[in-house]
């Protein structure tokens, strides 16, 4: 157990009592959330437990009706995904959000292109393709993604490699948090493992990762802590090293309450 006074300094992102209603449906019903520095926090929950709504609120895709989100010690109000991005939060989506006919370098810098210096950049608005290719290669190398040519079109890559490009993009631009929404769901077994390895490397870079996944073996393999969402609230935060997969599922489905767990199973 870590000393409680140590925790506040290491908290990167914290949400308190988030509420989000869609018509008569209450998606978030006072959800709390806490993310520490350089950890992989898995978010699990049954369908309708509020995990997507939580992620949408944290990534700026939805505005909570009430509640507070604090990032790096400051209260933030995200109105659009771009706000979260400017605050240093990047998101990787399940559906491989890349432009297939465009090159790896172009995909990495899509929407954040670097222009040339001087007249060519300011007046002609010319892109600095060389520098983007060079920096892309650097970002890919940092995560040990060994794709040779940055000018290669993304559609020539496999599904896992494409997701690798998406992960590299978020890791390159995130300053605090990378949110991964089911990043392995559309991949095969081997490619899924590859992406898990990448997620570890993103954490080892010092970034905090929020991993939403239905895949319990994946969650137990790489998560440092597990946030369990249930009925729009946080049911528990579990320590994957001290709890069995079936007990975690039991908490998730409501078959077991957090109070029934041994204290070391909670985190």
């Amino acid at each position, binding site marked *: 157990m870590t000393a409680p006074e140590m925790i506040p300094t290491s908290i990167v992102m914290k949400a308190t009592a988030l509420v989000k209603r869609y018509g008569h449906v209450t998606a978030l019903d006072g959800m709390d959330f806490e993310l520490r520095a350089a950890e992989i926090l898995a978010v699990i929950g049954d369908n309708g437990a509020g995990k997507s709504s939580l992620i949408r609120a944290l990534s700026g895709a939805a505005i909570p009706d009430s509640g507070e989100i604090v990032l790096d010690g400051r209260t933030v109000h995200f109105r659009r995904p771009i706000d979260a991005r400017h605050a240093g939060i990047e998101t990787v989506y399940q559906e491989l959000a890349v432009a297939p006919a465009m090159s790896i370098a172009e995909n990495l810098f899509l*929407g954040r292109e670097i222009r040339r210096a001087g007249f060519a950049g300011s007046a002609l608005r010319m892109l600095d393709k060389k520098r983007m290719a060079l920096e892309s290669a650097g970002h890919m190398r940092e995560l040990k993604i060994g794709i040779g040519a940055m000018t290669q079109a993304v559609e020539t890559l496999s599904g896992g490699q494409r997701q*690798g490009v998406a992960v590299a993009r978020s890791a390159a631009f995130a300053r605090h948090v990378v949110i991964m929404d089911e990043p392995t769901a559309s991949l095969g077994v081997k490619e899924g493992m*590859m992406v898990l390895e990448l997620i570890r490397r993103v954490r080892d870079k010092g970034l905090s990762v929020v991993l939403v996944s239905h895949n319990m073996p994946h969650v137990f393999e790489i998560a440092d802590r597990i946030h369990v969402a249930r009925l729009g609230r946080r049911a528990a935060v579990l320590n994957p090293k001290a709890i069995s997969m079936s007990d975690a599922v039991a908490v998730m489905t409501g078959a077991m309450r957090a109070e029934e767990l041994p204290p070391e199973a909670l985190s």
Partner: protein
Amino acid sequence: MLREEISRPADNWRERLPAVGTVGPLLALLVASAFFSAQSDRFLTGENLSLVLQQVMVVGVIAIGQTLIILTAGVDLSCGMVMALGGIVMTKLAAELGLPVPVAIACGIGVTTMFGLINGALVTAVKLPPFIVTLGTMNIAFAITQLYSDSQTVTEIPESMTALGATFEIGGTSIVYGVVLMLVLYLAAWFGLRETASGRHVYAVGNDPEAARLTGIATQRVLLGVYVIAGALYGVAALLSVARTGVGDPNAGQTENLDAITAVVLGGTSLFGGRGVVLGSLVGALIVGVFRNGLTLMGVSSVYQVLVTGVLVILAVATDQLSRRGAR
């Protein structure tokens, strides 16, 4: 192990496919030119080639706008009709209301740009399919053109309005200024699409609009911008058409309407969006022009020219479709 998995190079032929896509049209143009020069001695003369360029300049400029729209996975069926309206507006304002020529031209281009804005707004804000929107505006533009002109050709337009139809000589071959303007516009579009962020965003939106949106690109703004720029280009094409014919013709743009789409598709731009090079559309326009011109020189009836154009389009789209299937 991870490294080895990821660094597996893609199959060679697949990587080369896009290259075939850009070289193919040029090859087709060369083959067609070789064929017609074998058929007719008059084909490969400076005078005749200059004529082909002159015949192509109007559809060529329209095709730039059409390329931008097709790159976003849209299509503009109204291009020729909007151009005709622009031509009528600028000639009537100058010839009948006596407005200064630059003002009349600006008004004509303004009207076509407005149509681009309307198309773009309906596609982005109301989220209607471009095919339907432009089918509607095509008819609206045609009707307004007929009503406003009373279906009469506008004649006796000021001479300065047809200045772009004047020629200069290079090595004994006369070239129309309008052709130069067309080439400059192509180079500008090529540069913008290739070298600027906005240009790359056009490709990204056409590739996968959802992915583009998720990376933070203002996809609606990109789409709207593309339709507005296309509208402005139709206005320029209207000016070229007026310069070439010397009149404001309410029935202009009827062949150009579909020829522009044909040129873009022949030039290797995918109707599915996100792939293509704007210079290819110039090549595509030249292919159409060369076929028309060559078949005329051979004395083939114009009905067969239309037939050949139809076959060419289907061939080009089939190539696009098949190469896409191969790449998946």
